[in-house]
């Protein structure tokens, strides 16, 4: 048995310890906001927070996620209110197809967790692991600045 704490809830799962966290979240727990894009930690669509840091859940065995605080896109909102990063995403109309945006938002949240006032190179570095095929980078950058209170 593997015990995971996801969005504040404990889940006991009878799964292999080497099952990537992504597939435990999507297939076993049934939270589908976290996406599969590449399976090799190259695209960032599967990004979740582990103890506040952005990790690629497609390449993280559930065994390594035990006893950690995992937050997915579904766990960001508080009392039904979107967080400031999500609000900034809506205000800037960032998403196009939207598929990568859960991962983008999680990476942005992790960035702002450690740097409340990121500069351009902080944004480049923090977001370089997240691909957006629709090409929403201009708006992602704007939304991060908005969330940081720069707009």
């Amino acid at each position: 048995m593997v015990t995971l704490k996801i969005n504040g809830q404990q889940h006991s799962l009878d799964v292999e310890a080497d099952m990537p966290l992504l597939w435990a979240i999507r297939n076993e727990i049934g939270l589908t906001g976290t996406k599969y894009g590449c399976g090799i930690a190259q695209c960032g669509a599967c990004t979740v927070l582990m103890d506040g840091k952005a990790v690629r859940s497609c390449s993280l065995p559930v065994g390594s996620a035990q006893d950690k605080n995992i937050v997915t896109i579904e766990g960001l909102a508080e009392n039904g209110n979107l967080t400031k990063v999500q609000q900034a995403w809506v205000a800037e109309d960032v998403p196009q197809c939207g598929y990568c945006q859960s991962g983008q938002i999680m990476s942005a949240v992790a960035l702002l967790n450690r740097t409340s006032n990121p500069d351009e190179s902080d944004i480049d570095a923090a977001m370089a692991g997240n691909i957006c095929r629709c090409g929403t980078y201009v708006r992602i950058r704007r939304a991060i600045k908005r969330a940081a209170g720069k707009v």
Partner: protein
Amino acid sequence: MAKMKKLSRRDFVVSAATASGGLALGLFMPGFPAFAAPAYKNPAFAGDAADPREVNAWVVIEPDDTVTLRCPMAEMGQGTGTGLPMLLAEELECDWSKVKVEFSSVNRNIRENGIYGDQMTAGSRGIRTTWPYVQQAGASARARLIAAAAQRWNVATSECVAAKSKVMHQASGRSLRFGELVTDAAKIKLAQEPAIKTPEEFKFAGTRQPRLDSAAKSDGSAKFGIDTREAGQLYASIMSCPVFGGKLVSVDDSAIRNARGVKQVVKLDDAVAVVADNYWRANEALKKLKVKWDGGKDARTDSIRFAQDYRDALDGPLVAARNDGDAKGVIAKSAHVVTAEYETPLLAHATMEPCNATVHLQKGRMDIWMGSQSAFSNAKMAAEETGLKPEQIYFHQTYLGGGFGRRTFGDELRHAIRVAKAGNITVPLQLLWSREQDMHADRYRPQSAIRMKGALTADGKLEALYIQSACGSIARSTGRKVPDGIDFTALEGIGPSVPYNKIPNWYTGQMLKDTHVPVGYWRSVGGSQNCFYMESFIDELAHAAGKDPLEFRRSLTDRVDSLAVLKKLEEISNWHKPLAPGRGRGISLVDNHEALGGQVAEVTIQSNGEVKVDRVYAVTDAYHVVNPNLVDAQIEGGVIFGMTAMLYGEITIKDGAAVQGNFNDYRMVRMPDAPATVTALALTGGKDEKGKPKWGGVGECSTAPIAAAIANAIFAASGKRIRSLPLKNLKLTELASL
């Protein structure tokens, strides 16, 4: 296969009225709660049966005045799921905050003879060809609501007006909400359907509005095909024969016998799949199979050979696809001929959501959940695959995690159906292509080569263009005949769909050269390679003529749209202001999917010879637009999409199979590469040749120009001319200066 009736606007209204006949129920289902802001409904797809609240098949009005558009277009990011409801609200005169949207029923479209059109979301057609239907739906609904109110008050309809979700009788000051009129309105038969508004009459359409789906796409709740979860659902991962067109010979599954969760191994003619209770288990087991394939003679092919074949094909024989004046004769006599050869490779679509389909095959019925650009034709294909009748197929459209042309063919659906059938799987089955399968089994942007010759007069005017092109045929690859040897998709940008009309002598010869590698529509289609060729070569000609590249383009056209885009571009890019050494500015102008796209790229050549694209100015003339916010997003994104191809994009073939399989070897533009983008509209309005408002499509006209804009900027900065893509294969320091 049922042949779809070609739908005129008039037919559509008649059939819509029929569909809403017999609705004298007066009983309402409990209405949905009112929403503070417009949104997609959840579930996002419409019911498959007529609804008592529908005024016509496209529009439902609830007692609380909520208006729902059954949208015929898929939503893959392009934003027509917001633009089309705006057009509806414009005609219906309803409160925008009460408008919702859902995907129209595919099953109903089959049963009601294409009442929602072909539901094809491709070719930048979302607004460009759908506006008349949506506007008519809104206008016809409004006229029925007014007629119902007039009837109730016993006054003339001409005394009543609709505004803000109410019908008002001006003389008496009475008013009724739309929700109070909808049952009566559904019964109204009009002698004549009302005329729709012209864009000049719009009050709401044309304004900058937020997308309806941003919140759902920012909180994880938006459902894509991959998110389908039905009771008892199983998961499949599949691998196609690596050599396109090859066959499966044998499968040794000894390594996965007793593997946890694995239900079965399913063999198809050209693929093998593993079905399990969790996708990861299915995919891990698939990787452990020992599979023998027969690739046939195509297993001996590779990209180096193909590239040579395309170059050799330029010597002909070619089919004349455009022949104005006497290009050959003028070039033979000209004292100043410029010649260049260019080439570009195969490209993968690489949608962020890998292709997938969920099917539930039952006796006399199949349900499908997937995001498709072509749900209607996919559903008909599903009927053929299963032997069911088309009306027994229930296709539930979801959001698409990117389309770009990939999600039109239904290859993933065909796989899901074949695995379900061959494995006799009667529970819901989700078949998901791994990223590697998605990249290895794509239908790629065709490979091509081109030779271009231009003749300049002594004073630097372009008097003739002579173009020889060899390109893969999408039409042939997708099973259509090309009896005259001319495939528009291979030609657009070098024959038809060009922004210039003052080049007197013009020949384009085409050789459709196919390989065993499947090719398909890829965002901006022929423009993706041809506009790179054309606009790079126009730049070469401008420099050879000693002319400013922008002024040179101006001399090639008197089209109002082309000139408007050039003028705007000149202004916003500070075109005439010199840049520092090592930096360069390049321009490109295209006509793609009936919209003009002009771009100026600014680049810096770094000390190591690498190119940084600093800034892109992008100007669009789509004649009319519904929502500039959506247009901006399409333009910004299209630039990045085309830039990825320019800098990195290349699928190579080795031993008959695609080499690249994931984002580690098929590189994408990422945040640090992304240039600042400045967008602007230069709308020239106007009508088409039939006198109808002219609408351009904005989904692709910014992808086509970017490669040439960057290449021309590199030339301006370094004197190096880029004649083959992607740029990653070239070392600028080793290229000869021209």
